[in-house]
């Protein structure tokens, strides 16, 4: 097993928001066993935008699912925002609540709820976090304005352009002020101009909110927007 510690380079590194130690994940047993992640060690500091690259089946999505507490690792240790959440077993029973509080997700195809308008799509996360209606609406509107889609607050999802929908999805991911944002191919469905706008927005969010952003991407035109890029090959993580 190959092990590598790859800290993000900073002058005086603050406490990492994502800290993985020896995380492995395999599916199946015996002859059908597939090692998706092998002994991954990774630290991501606040304010950084990290790119995860790799060929199809290399384990990128599995790594994202593990950090997002969707897939249970086979072994290793994981800390999110300073809280130990996995140590050869889940340390918190309420992983959905953990996701609600600490993690924001951005999807390849925005995955907005089609029966809600833009404002409601952002507000739903806040309502799930039991914020009151007034606070919810103010925060949702503030985020839409921040992402420059405030004028589309009452538009239904089907009436949004690809770029607008992705910005609403980013607003939703930011709603609960998560410290960790996981993005799965956030620019894949966008043209190069819009892709750069979205990545610049993510950089702005990471910088202003001191959040850690991990994005899986194949999109070469946005590589220059990452602070650091990691490659996953056969379950191994290399810088």
């Amino acid at each position: 097993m190959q092990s590598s510690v790859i800290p993000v380079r900073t002058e005086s590194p603050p406490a990492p928001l994502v800290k993985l130690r020896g995380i492995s994940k395999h599916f199946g047993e015996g002859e059908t066993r597939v090692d998706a992640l092998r002994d991954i060690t990774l630290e991501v500091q606040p304010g950084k935008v990290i790119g995860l690259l790799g060929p199809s089946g290399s384990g990128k999505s599995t790594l994202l699912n593990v950090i997002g507490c969707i897939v249970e690792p086979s072994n290793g240790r994981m800390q999110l925002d300073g809280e130990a959440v996995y140590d050869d077993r889940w340390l918190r029973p309420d992983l959905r609540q953990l996701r609600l509080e600490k993690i924001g997700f951005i999807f390849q195809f925005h995955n907005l709820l089609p029966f809600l308008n833009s404002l409601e799509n952002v507000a739903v996360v806040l309502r799930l976090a039991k914020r009151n209606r007034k606070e919810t609406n103010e925060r949702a509107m503030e985020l839409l304005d921040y992402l420059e889609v405030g004028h589309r607050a009452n538009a239904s999802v089907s009436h949004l352009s690809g770029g607008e929908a992705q910005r609403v999805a980013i607003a939703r991911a930011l709603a609960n002020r998560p410290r960790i944002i996981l993005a799965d191919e956030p620019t894949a469905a966008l043209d190069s101009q819009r892709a750069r706008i979205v990545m610049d927005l993510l950089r702005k969010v990471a910088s202003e909110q001191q959040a850690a952003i991990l994005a899986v991407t194949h999109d070469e035109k946005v590589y220059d927007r990452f602070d650091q890029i990691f490659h996953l090959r056969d379950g191994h993580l290399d810088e």
Partner: protein
Amino acid sequence: MNLAFRDIRHSLGRFLLTCLGLSLLLGVVLSMIGIYRGLVDDALVLARSPGVDLWVVESGTRGPFAESSRIPGDIREAIARMHGVVAAGAVTYQSVEAQQAHGKLRLYVVGYEPGRPGGPRHLVSGRPITRSHYEMIADQRTGLRLGERLRLGRDTFTVVGLTDGQVASGGDPVVYITLLDSQILQFELAPAAVRREQARGMAVGYTDTVNVVLARVASQVQADKVVDQVTHWKHLSAMTQAGQEEILIRSVVAQARKQIGLFTGILLMVSAVIIALIVYTMTMDKLRVIATLKLIGAPDRTIIGLIVQQALAMGVIGFAVGALLISQFKDYFPRRVILQPQDGLVLALIVIVVCVLASGLGVRLALKVDPATALGG
């Protein structure tokens, strides 16, 4: 923020169409219950109409509706003289088919003695029978009007009064004529048949036969006691009003009641299966949405609420529209449909329970959805 309501609003047309289909199904269920109520009420209306306490019929029978009963007409005098009996009347019942200009008319003919128990309790128009022969009181459902003439057997009758809601257990509208006329109609043979019977050496001409003697007893007298006396001393069968109604419900309409009950049960099961399939399909359409909700941290109760609330909305709207449709169109049914509030309430509760149970399949599917589905890859 109610996600179920938002989702319904988003695909309102499809949801309303589904509700409409369900409402037709639930409307049929409700109409079946109404038909059953109508059947029972129709069966009882004729027995309740005379307002009597005692039914005296042929010994060993449970007539006149459940079994055939024939007793001599003078039995009425014997019953009237019994202790505790304040009034008695002889009555005949028979089904006939009358020929009209526009077709045949099925009727249930009641022959009674005017001024004695057995006649209609209430007229909606016209007057009671005052002549001994050839006058008739008809129910409005016959379509006959006051003054109209109708031939029954070998005689022609004039409608002098109208009743409302008087039908036999088979649904045929009731007409009332005098006992004498009804005995002629029921028992008097045609001249050719009389000659044939005389040739066989049989006695003919005696028509003073009735199907039942109805009696009212004094308020301080128990009808059961009179029943015992009649059975013991008069060698006849007798039953109280409650006994007669029990026979009608248990015997006369029992099969129809079971049939309708079974059919209603099957329809409810079909409704449950259809609701379950609709909810399951609606959940299938939302798998990615459900995965996204799970991923962003929605608890199971939010997802279960989304599915169960939609199933309940579908059931409640379907039931309400179904009930509205049936209440508007019930009068067009060939037989009486009686919608009782308590039946509607019970069916509404059943629909709610069915919706909750039927949504179980969709909930099970939703809870199994992997949140990673939303991410893909």
